[in-house]
């Protein structure tokens, strides 16, 4: 059985969700810097406008993923990201995780941790952000607590986003997967063996059925 040259890793809808989320996250981080770091605030001023942009982008941040839930491919990947196999734990602990010796599925454990952390962070930032924005409806101590959580978690989110971008930039094939949707099968077998094998099988099977149908008619 010949392997397909490339595999579909992300559908158009999934890539749209990723891009929209990335843009909104970028807006949140940049406006946060201008609200938070005095030197930058002194450069721009316009505090009310920047705050407004920050709040709108923050409220919008979960929206692409919510829309994505309408796509079967997105729901499937969400399910995969949720579940950790025994190999995921082994992969996390192993020092040779990058050698491909431990077979992992469509996402490795690092990607799963990142995705789930970002989801949790987006929700916590949204909740604490709403407490801060509509401060009058809450007791003072909650308002202070929300600011405390929002500020510290912002640094963790920044670190996770920078790490995510850095890792992606080291791997042109991973970038290609998110840009075009397709990845070379050879890359997939090296990085995501279980997924590559199953996906290849599915593609071949589909091609075979199609061929059979064409032959019949």
């Amino acid at each position: 059985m010949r392997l397909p040259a490339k595999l579909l890793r992300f559908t158009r809808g999934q890539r749209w969700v990723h891009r929209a989320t990335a843009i909104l996250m970028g807006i949140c981080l940049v406006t946060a810097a201008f609200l938070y770091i005095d030197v930058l605030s002194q450069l721009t001023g316009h505090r009310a406008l920047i705050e407004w942009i920050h709040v709108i982008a923050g409220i919008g941040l979960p929206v692409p993923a919510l829309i994505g839930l309408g796509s079967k491919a997105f729901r499937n990947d969400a399910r995969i990201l949720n579940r950790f196999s025994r190999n995921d734990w082994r992969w996390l602990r192993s020092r040779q995780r990058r050698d491909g010796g431990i077979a992992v599925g469509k996402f490795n454990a690092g990607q799963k941790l990142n995705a789930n952390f970002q989801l949790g962070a987006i929700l916590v930032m949204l909740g604490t952000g709403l407490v801060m924005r509509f401060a009058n409806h809450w007791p003072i101590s909650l308002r202070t607590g929300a600011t405390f959580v929002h500020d510290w978690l912002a640094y963790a989110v920044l670190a996770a986003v920078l790490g995510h971008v850095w890792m992606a930039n080291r791997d042109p094939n991973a970038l290609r997967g998110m840009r075009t949707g397709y990845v070379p099968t050879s890359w997939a077998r090296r990085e995501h063996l279980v997924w590559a094998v199953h996906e290849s099988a599915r593609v071949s099977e589909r091609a075979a059925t199609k061929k059979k149908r064409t032959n019949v008619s």
Partner: protein
Amino acid sequence: MNRQWDDDERPPPRDHPDLPVDAPIDGEGRPVGRRIVLSMLGLGALGVVFGKQFQNVQNDVLAPVVSHDPTGLSNLLPAVDRFRYYNVTDSEPVRTASDYKLTVGGLVDRPMTLTLADLQAMPQTTLIKDFQCVTGWRVPQVHWSGVALPDLLEHVGVQKGASALRFTSFDGAYTESLTLAQAQRRDVLVALQMLGKPVTRDHGGPVRLYVAPMYGYKSCKWLGGIELASEVTPGYWEDLGYDVDAWVGKSNGRGDDAATS
């Protein structure tokens, strides 16, 4: 039940020759992701409820470091008590000690324009009091000095019918307000000094307002004009929903302690 596979697709083969025998199948395993998300929501809620206590501990630990930090890097730390820079226009307004002017007008007997030297020549009042921002941060025991607002009002003579003050910033956008009764308090200053030295440009210098019993947004930076009027006109942030009477601890839904001295 194999919920992880769509009904129209059979689960992939476990025993493919290319796969090790123990290869996992995508979508099987424990729902660790959900646990991570739920834990973060729980921790976030705990942080919101007990954040004030955490912050107090953090401030106690960091205060010595922050106050002796020459690099200014500690300003990047979250939730540390320090002045934060707020400006509502596109660039910082510039008035130096030599070209500074404060216009006082409206319902007064003697409308006048005061230079910094004029203000310095008037009796000075000194206060050591906290600065409390409505967004939560507070800088304790700030050294303020300047002309007490009631002294300035006496200097210009308030006319009958005046019951409110309108402050304008020379940034061209910011405005603030006080009732005449509030403006007669001795802890409301036209501040020339802050933190023990002339008010810097970032802090609203050369002259700003300091309204000790109220939240920071009442303490108009880059003070350019004072006008006596018959009624209160809500200021910049008040048009955006903040309380006009901004008593610390008794407005904006907040319960902070009053500014201590």
